[in-house]
């Protein structure tokens, strides 16, 4: 039954998933707490044309993806700061534009249609060492930033009006948070793709949200849940010959639905 885990490419997939679970736990909780789920989804979508462009022009694809995601995240952050809560329409517009641009670039400009599917839905079973290194680096950065800036992220989400008078006037903590969302979006892309990024970045943290009443405990629970969902997804994908990214997303969605049902029944 555990035979799939003997296979080297499955082992590499698990190795990729563990740092991604750390990202899902540390950063995912901040994404959920600060209402950044939709921007996170948008940043992943924006990374898609960035990757295609970088690939087509022959420079490091993750760099192109990160550049596009960062641009998107900071633009959304600026808009959110300026006009309050009414930035979701624009986020949706840019999200669609990014997806369309990516597909046009991939199929008509660079003729790399074969990779579009893996960019949109991930290719966890074809992970390379560079992907694992990127995931590990992003996980370390997410951990360090959360440890250092957690109090401020908490304060500016807790009551934004009072946070201003608390001297949380420096925009940097929130800029760092948005940049980390962009980095996380790129890091999960090779595993679950631009369209399923939130299966790791948002769904596990949203599932454990009401189980914990402190940030640190919530983050640890989420890391564990994301790791379990990820490994279970890889195993099921190999057993059923299903796409792993989508399998993980389905499992994460099902667990979330069960947790929500359990809560409403309790």
């Amino acid at each position, binding site marked *: 039954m555990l035979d799939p885990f003997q296979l080297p490419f499955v082992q590499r997939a698990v190795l990729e998933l563990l740092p991604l679970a750390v990202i899902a736990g540390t950063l995912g909780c901040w994404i959920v707490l600060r209402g950044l789920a939709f921007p996170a989804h948008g940043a992943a979508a924006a990374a898609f044309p960035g990757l295609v462009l970088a690939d087509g022009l022959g420079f490091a694809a993750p760099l192109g993806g990160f550049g596009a995601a960062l641009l998107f995240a900071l633009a959304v952050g600026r808009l959110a700061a300026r006009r309050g809560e009414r930035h979701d329409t624009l986020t949706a517009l840019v999200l669609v534009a990014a997806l369309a641009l990516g597909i046009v670039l991939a199929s008509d400009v660079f003729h790399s249609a074969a990779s579009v599917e893996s960019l949109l839905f991930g290719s966890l079973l074809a992970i390379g060492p560079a992907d694992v290194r990127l995931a590990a680096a992003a996980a370390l950065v997410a951990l360090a930033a959360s440890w250092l*800036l957690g*109090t401020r992220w908490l304060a500016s989400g807790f009551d934004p009006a009072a946070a201003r008078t608390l001297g949380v006037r420096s925009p940097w903590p929130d800029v760092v948070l948005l940049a980390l969302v962009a980095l996380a979006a790129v890091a999960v892309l090779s595993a679950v793709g631009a369209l399923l990024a939130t299966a790791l970045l948002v769904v596990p943290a949203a599932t454990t949200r009401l189980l914990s009443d402190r940030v640190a405990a919530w983050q640890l629970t989420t890391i564990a849940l994301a790791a379990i969902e990820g490994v279970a997804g890889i195993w099921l994908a190999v057993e059923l010959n299903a796409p792993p990214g989508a399998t993980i997303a389905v499992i994460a969605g099902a667990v979330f639905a069960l947790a929500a049902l359990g809560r409403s029944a309790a």
Partner: protein
Amino acid sequence: MSAAALVRADGVAVAYPGGPPVLTGVTFELREGERVAVLGPNGGGKTTLFRAVLGELRPAAGALAASARRAAVPQTERSRLDFPVSASDVALMGTIPGRPWWRRPSRADRAAARAALARVGLADRAERTYGELSGGQRQRVLIARAIVQDAGVLLLDEPFSGLDTTSAAALERLLGELAGEGRGVLIATHDLDQARGWDRVLCLNGRQLAFGDPADVLTPEVLAATYGGAIVTLPGTDPDAPRRAILPPHHHDHHHDHHHDRRGSAR
């Protein structure tokens, strides 16, 4: 003049960026150890004045000077009650202004947060989840946060609204103690009886209508001007001390009211 002025406003007008002044002619002093009630209808400029004193809004005219650190104590419903934070986490937020943005809270910061919670009588609730505390306890946690900020001036936005009598009495006592420590306390309120017990009263309705001792300021004329006549005198047992109450602001629009009236007269 015995005590030093913590906040001094002289002919201050405040406007939001690009708009006309929403509050004019504000001249008052908040001195060490004073509790000053800020009265006025909703939309009368209390919040605007607070934002100016906090330094968020720059006066469009006049001079506004403060010689002590100011801290806001907002209404607790303005904060996220579903946030995964303990009372000491919230108090700890008061240490943020004191350190660069990349620095974590130190051991001394945590000790200051604990001490401030003990100061407001919540030492045994420090690790409780903020959203699960009672309204009065939450209000005191926010006051602890202001104490951690080392604020010489506290601005409280209707801190007594929604509190039961026990919590209100505890809060009243705490505000008296904070003033006794030499802090200045500005309290936006609708409660005239309470304002009567404090040191000064400032009446606002788009402009400053009065400032001074409660006995001088809280006259029917000033109150009528402040609240636009929405004051009723309640029949009391003591004819020398009639109780005045402020009618709650109307949330119905006029159209709705007319409709209501028509139905009433048709019957």
